[in-house]
């Protein structure tokens, strides 16, 4: 499947789709999922629901596999002399912003660059410290009158860093959080082609994860799955990051463990990965998981949830980096899990006390 997944993922990280405005990315995902699913729907908040029907009699239980498709970025807050001022959509460290190539989604798509004004045009106390976001500007290279005609407050600004292939296995770019997981989920759907499942499988590309978790919460409410799995990126070990909070890149996905995770569900994934000899690491999540699982777990009367993490370096920068092998392993683990679900699985999902 990897032959197909790499170009697909490069396409995914070349498209915008900021939280709340996922249409461009959703259209690409929908086109790829259409032949892989029996039904496709779009939720009221913009998540994409793809159904693969099970082959056992109605009513069948369903598994929800959720990967958020929205990306972090910026939004225009003001225009001044043909330059744009910004606020963030999702969590961003302004220290990565000066010099970043962006696309301003005005009445036309305008390529531009985020700029740090010269020191003497900034408050003296900034000195060599990071320039706060409110002082950064976007320059689209147009004349002030052109900018006023084409751009308005509230327009989105997305990263425009093209994908960068680093050898055979590694890919860098913006929005790999969480398009890498969308790719893994797509790989899972491809692996399931021609393999019937007992359960209904809902592949869901969720909206708005980076801001509100609203997509996953409402999709879980609508779809009422018996089980839900969030697939998201996790911190890969990288220069400057603490070793005890990070996982090696290219050495397999992480299996979450903590209050968001149902222990029996976690054990099922762990046993399956061991049996398939898919390498993995356990990821301790002492509080919230920071993923769609936090919302799905508390949807309706409560849903047993699990989190799979794909290690990713430099999270929330435009040069995030992933290993394609990790994506393939995650896709395979999901597919094998979905395929192995039988009528007795839920009976085994018990608390051990």
């Amino acid at each position: 499947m990897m032959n197909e997944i790499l170009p697909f993922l490069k396409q995914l990280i070349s498209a915008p789709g900021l939280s709340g405005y996922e249409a461009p990315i959703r259209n690409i995902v929908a086109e790829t999922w259409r032949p892989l699913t029996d039904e496709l729907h779009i939720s009221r908040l913009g998540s994409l629901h793809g159904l693969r029907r099970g082959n056992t009699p109605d009513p069948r239980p369903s598994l929800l596999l959720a990967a958020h498709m929205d990306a972090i970025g910026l939004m225009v807050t003001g225009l001044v002399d043909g330059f744009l001022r910004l606020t963030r959509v999702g969590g961003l460290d302004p220290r990565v912003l000066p010099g970043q190539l962006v696309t301003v989604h005005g009445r036309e798509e305008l390529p531009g660059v985020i700029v740090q004004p010269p020191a003497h045009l900034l408050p003296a106390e900034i000195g060599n410290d990071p320039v706060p976001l409110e002082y950064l500007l976007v320059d689209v290279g147009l004349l002030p009158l052109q900018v006023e005609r084409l751009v308005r407050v509230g327009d989105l600004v997305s990263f425009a860093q093209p994908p960068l292939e680093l050898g055979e296995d590694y890919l860098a770019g913006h929005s790999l959080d969480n398009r890498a997981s969308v790719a893994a989920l797509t790989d899972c759907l491809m692996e399931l082609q021609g393999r019937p499942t007992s359960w209904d499988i809902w592949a869901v590309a969720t909206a708005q994860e980076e801001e509100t978790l609203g997509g996953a919460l409402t999709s879980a409410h609508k779809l009422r799955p018996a089980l839900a799995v969030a697939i998201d990126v996790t911190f890969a070990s990288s220069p400057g990051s603490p070793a005890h909070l990070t996982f090696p890149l290219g050495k397999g996905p992480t299996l979450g463990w903590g209050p968001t995770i149902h222990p029996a569900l976690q054990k099922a994934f762990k046993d399956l990965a061991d049996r398939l000899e898919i390498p993995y690491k356990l990821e301790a999540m002492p509080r919230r998981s920071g993923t769609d699982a936090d919302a799905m777990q508390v949807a309706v009367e409560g849903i047993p949830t699990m989190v799979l993490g794909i290690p990713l370096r430099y999270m929330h920068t435009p040069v995030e980096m992933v290993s394609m092998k990790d994506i393939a392993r995650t896709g395979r683990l999901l597919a094998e899990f979905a395929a192995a679900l039988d009528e007795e699985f839920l009976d085994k999902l018990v608390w051990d006390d």
Partner: protein
Amino acid sequence: MTEPTYTSPKIGTAQIRLLERLCNAPAVSGDEQEVRAIVLEQVRPHASEVRVDALGNVLAIHPGQGEGRLKVMLAAHMDEVGMMIVDDEGEGILRFDTVGGVDVRQLVGKPVWVGRQHIPGVIGAKPVHLTSAEERKRSLSLDTLRIDIGPDNAKKVMVGDRATFATSFTRLGPSLRAKALDDRLGVVTLIELLRHAPTNIDLLAAFTVQEEVGLRGAHVAAYALDPDLAIALDCTPANDLPAWNSGGQNTDPADGENTRYNTRLGAGPAIYVADHATLSDPRLIRHLVETAETSGIPYQIRQPGGGGTDAGAIHKQRMGIPSVTVSVPGRYAHTAAMIARLEDWKNTLTLVHAALARLPVDLLAVER
């Protein structure tokens, strides 16, 4: 009436395409090979003599015709700021140092090309989720940053390789966006001047190296060429951005008047009166201004202040060489993406060409 012995230069599709090639080529100071190869290919058909000197400067000579010609040196630097790999930590993680004046804050989160094979890499940053508010108030220091080319390509890079920002040239409406517009704009301008060299002068073109690390190429090129006068063709900062208003906390952060813009985009070629390295020759300034005004070419006087160009080295060479600089204004020098106006570049070429074509033989006969 005699036939004109030269044709007028212009910036058209071919010149913009050449600029694109030159901007996308890495040429960090001391390793200008890629740009030099393009320059040599471009200038060979248009010069009577072309040589590469001991430092790597390309010197190209176009002799004029007639008596008492002035020898005019035109200098444009081929090199750009960048990085050098100084340590290989294994698995594709590389420690690096900067070459030339680079604000370390501009490096974070950028893609780069490493070495002559342009191996792609990234300068990452710790995820925001793992940083404290206190940490985010401090800039990331150079010794904490690494270039990451990934484990697969780890063997393809060596300590000593140069790295540049991996930014591809783009047109933005009336503007150009690229790395290294400083000074590839000057390089293409000089190539065009050679192609259309006025015949009243001997045109001595120097495509210089190591400008960004101390004007070292120009220093020896000026000695070798021994000109009567020199013009450096460079790209100077346009700091024409909104200024923060220091009037108080409740004022709009960007409604101050910017009185220190250095130059402005769209206002034409920037003529230097004084920078940190050179007090321009007033006779040359006057000649350029008169040329602009009689020919109706827009121009601006660069605000006197800091900075320096190849003129800083040239004017002190031998017994003194009257020198001036004309620059295309460009925003965001020494970052991943500069922005300049196409119109300013066209007017720079037009101005310098017109000034050379009407250069009086006795310009320097009057005392400075």
